[in-house]
């Protein structure tokens, strides 16, 4: 029994964190809000070089052949930086879905490209009305009633929409499922949702941590009535409540990733618990962060909103807290 990351996992995550501290600071995220792609120029290839993107892909196609538990701490770091790249979707969901379910030729071709960073694949799960990064995707993994399909962009009609998070380029997609594109059945789709929920939960924990860090930093500095506002008990308790929410969400998220790695029969239940807790934590922390910042948090010149709006988007992505609690209830309560 050991419930902690290995030193290797922590080192890998720290290396990614160091990269993001340099290449994905708030100024870089602001660039992604304004540019054509919603992404940070050059950053994806750095992540590809580090092996992060192909972490779950077999070594034979240029991946690292590692597991979800190795990736989850890295995705958490991506959340902390509000990384505006489709990391959790591609590395966490698309790669294992193609790896496990595409035919050998497709798998080899698409995974090689993804691991080499030469193309991306967009993901459309039934739980989400919107697809992120549809424009420019080389392929789509799309869910229909009969399972996951691997779909060519030529036959996907894309209608762009605008998200509150300027770096999220979301679209509605329209397409016609056919047996020719079917990659796997509903169980494969359910597994994809479990992975999506788990990695989105990890991102949300990272976002929550950064919002809390911004908040504790601000309230320790900001003075009113002659003292730092962080010395007021109401502010202290807000911050403690924020920490409580996120610190008790994280173990559920790490466990969900572990269960995916282990192909635990309860992996789906664990993913739902993780997403429910992380969505709630990010919501609570975001509310508290806004309140403790006062007016400054309500401006776009201050950085808080970059993390807050990402969190708002991800809170309902891949299933809301309520929907995942319903799944837990169905499983546990019958």
């Amino acid at each position, binding site marked *: 029994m050991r419930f902690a990351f290995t030193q290797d996992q922590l080192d890998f995550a720290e290396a990614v964190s160091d990269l993001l501290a340099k290449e994905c600071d708030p100024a870089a995220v602001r660039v992604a809000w304004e540019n054509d792609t919603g992404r940070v120029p050059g950053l994806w290839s750095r992540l590809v070089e580090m092996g992060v993107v192909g972490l779950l892909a077999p070594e034979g196609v240029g991946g690292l052949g590692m597991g979800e538990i190795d990736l989850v701490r890295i995705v958490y770091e991506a959340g902390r930086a509000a990384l505006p790249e489709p990391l959790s979707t591609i590395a966490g969901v698309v790669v294992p879905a193609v790896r496990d379910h595409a035919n050998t030729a497709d798998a080899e071709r698409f995974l090689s490209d993804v691991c080499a960073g030469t193309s991306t694949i967009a993901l459309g799960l039934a739980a989400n009305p919107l697809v992120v990064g549809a424009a420019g995707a080389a392929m789509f993994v799309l869910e229909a009633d009969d399972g996951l399909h691997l779909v060519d962009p030529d036959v996907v009609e894309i209608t762009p929409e*605008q998200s*509150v998070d300027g770096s999220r380029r979301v679209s509605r997609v329209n397409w016609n499922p056919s047996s020719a594109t079917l990659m796997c059945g509903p169980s494969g789709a359910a597994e994809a949702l479990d992975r999506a929920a788990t990695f989105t939960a990890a991102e949300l924990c990272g976002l929550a941590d950064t919002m809390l860090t911004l908040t504790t930093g601000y309230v320790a500095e900001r003075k*009113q009535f002659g003292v730092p*506002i962080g010395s007021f008990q109401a502010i202290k308790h807000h911050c403690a409540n924020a920490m409580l929410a996120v610190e008790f969400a994280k173990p559920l998220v790490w466990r969900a990733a572990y269960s995916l790695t282990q192909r635990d029969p309860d992996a789906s239940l664990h993913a739902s618990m993780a997403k429910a807790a992380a969505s709630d934590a990010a919501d609570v922390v975001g509310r508290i962060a806004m309140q403790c910042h006062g007016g400054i*948090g*309500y401006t776009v010149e201050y950085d808080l909103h970059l993390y807050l709006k990402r969190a708002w988007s991800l809170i*309902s992505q891949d299933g*809301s807290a309520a929907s995942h609690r319903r799944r837990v209830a169905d499983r546990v309560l019958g």
Partner: protein
Amino acid sequence: MDLTWSADEDAFRAECRAWLAEHAPNPPLPSGDTAEGFALHMEWERKLYADRWAVVSWPTEHGGRGASLWEWLIFEEEYYRAGAPQRVTQNGIFLLAPSIYEFGTQAQQDYYLPRMAAGEDLWCQGWSEPNAGSDLAGLTSKAVRDDEAGGWRLHGQKTWTTRGAFCTHLFGLFRTDPDSTRHHGLTYLLVPLDIDGVTVRGFGRLDGDEGFAEVFFDGAFVPDGDGDPAAGGVLGEVNGGWGVAMATTSSERGLTLRSPGRFTAATARLVQLYRERGGSVDDPGVRDAVAQAWIDAEAYALYTLSDVTGIVEGRSPGARSSLNKIFWSELDVRLHEAALRLLGGESELVEWGPDGQRVENPWLKGYQFSLSGPIYAGTNEIQRNIVAERVLGLPRK
């Protein structure tokens, strides 16, 4: 107890409703906190004024109808029910005007109030400063005496000035006694924004609008105010600004701005949204959340009726108005949260609605706006202190 309206009040309601049905913009105007939106809103404000709906509770000589508090409530209820535009003139009408009525000279009243009602002067508030938010008494912007010119030279900076970039005038507090601290030695000044030495810089708000401004003062001159009001001047006594501001602030914190119609109308729309989407969203608890929001809006409306009854009969709510502010601001957040749950994965969309009827997503926009409620006009932390200390009598230290 009598929860029925008189025949006159019913007639007044019918008149409001008919006029609004005919004139309220449809589709709704875009946000008034952008330059383009603001212009459209000013058209609407002029239309309201022309038909004497701009300031129903004011005397007729200032553009109003001399409406009672009950009629004002009715008007507000109908206004929100009609989905009519947010009032971009509200800071002047609801925050400044009560102070002008209470503290202004006859000349100030006669000059400012009709122009305000007509939308000729547009007022923004200059309370907050970079280092004086919740701690309003910590402000440092100063007005230095210029005896020769018979007035005051302003220096310093105000911020979080809503719609400051579009307004023509600012009202606010400035330190006139350089040796004073805290709430002493402050003066309430009325300042045209087009005079020399004033610079206004708009900046972006959470919801994407540019509705905030910083206002910088670099020696701008304001006369004492006993001459032509057009040049601005002092409202009330020199060094007596805190009392004037508190009157305004309690007006803001209290009843006037947060008419219950705003929340009963919002929950009525929430109920409609639930009927459209409640069956398809995977959220077993959202039905309860919508019912709770609806109950809360009813509770707020009834609480207000009780407050108005008290005011009409000479019982002021006093510090209890802090309860009011906490309740409506947190109700507003909860009701928008329920709406976002109903929107599910579409809640993040800036534009939303059926094809061909896309509008700025009112629930996302409203949620973002609601988050400012527990902060502005005295944070809810401070309001809870007030309830505990001034209403429940707990010790300050």
